[in-house]
């Protein structure tokens, strides 16, 4: 169980600059009464973030854009959204998505 000291220092530096944007608004803005329009604006943040993360995760699974049929993540995107719409089940959708991906890969390998 060895650690290189300089690696730990770099990790600590990274952790510090990560924790500041995570913590500062929660600690200070939670003390402030925000204008109604800002609260409404913030209400859209989860939907906006999820749409962006979902689009990135299925259209660029390896970090670069892949719109070919060989991109299984993209193939599974519409079925998974449909399962979510029909079942409204978080766990059900996650399990279906994982199973679908496994099947797609099996078919591709076969």
């Amino acid at each position, binding site marked *: 169980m060895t*650690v*290189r000291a300089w*690696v730990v220092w*770099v*990790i*600590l*530096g*990274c*952790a510090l*600059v*990560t*924790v500041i*944007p*995570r*913590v*500062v*608004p*929660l*600690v200070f*803005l*939670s*003390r402030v009464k*925000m204008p109604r*329009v800002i609260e*409404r*604006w*913030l*209400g*859209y*943040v*989860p*939907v*906006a*973030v*999820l*749409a*962006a*993360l*979902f*689009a*990135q*995760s299925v259209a*660029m*699974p390896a970090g670069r854009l892949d719109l070919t049929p060989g991109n299984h993540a993209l193939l599974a*995107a519409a079925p998974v*959204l449909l399962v*979510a719409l029909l079942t*409204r*089940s*978080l*766990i059900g*959708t*996650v399990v279906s*998505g*994982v*199973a*679908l*991906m496994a099947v*797609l*890969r099996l078919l591709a390998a076969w």
Partner: protein
Amino acid sequence: MGGVSARYRDGARDAFPVVLGYTAIGLAFGVVAQTAGFTVAEVAVMSLVLYAGSAQFVAVGLIAAGAPASAIVLTIFLVNVRHLLYSTALSPHVRRLAPWQNALIGAELTDETFAVATLRLNGGALASAPWLFGINNTSHAAWLACTTLGALLGSSIADTRVLGLDYALPAMFAALLVLQAAGRPEKGAVLAAAGAGAVVGLGGALVMPAGWAVIAATLAAATLGVALEGRVEG
């Protein structure tokens, strides 16, 4: 509502999809880091104090490439600065909690825990501290355990992609997106915001780092949502 421990358990249960997603990515990260020359202890330290999926991959790559410390720290800041938006969006829901509680909650804020938590916080609902700690601690523990295990097993591990487990997070994003949108009254504005978020998030990622594209997508989509609110519907 139940007692403190019941709410903590509720949070731990709500974190289950995050745990599934972190299992695949965590194992993969451990293997990548071990292959790049990191020790098991270094991987554990990183997952304990940095605790950020994509940023840890970036950090390992930069450290292995011998980048200067200042460049690594600046890059990680830029990768993770999107958390400002999550922390800000969560802040109205924790206004009754003590500052030390909010600091601890913020320290374990990730894309995934933010998305899971806000699902239950529609409108001006107040979050309970034990519930948020349940979500956060469970997710963080899963990340720490799986990344460390990945580093221990190293390249001897079977490819987790075969099981499709790496699709747990995209599927979770899809489900949370649908559930979030369904829980809001202004359907037209929410759909437009989701569309804008997807387009800007994807288009932006082609010309800037993915984390920045999430910020650009959020700024554009939330502004569009508020602008359309009350206009699309009566």
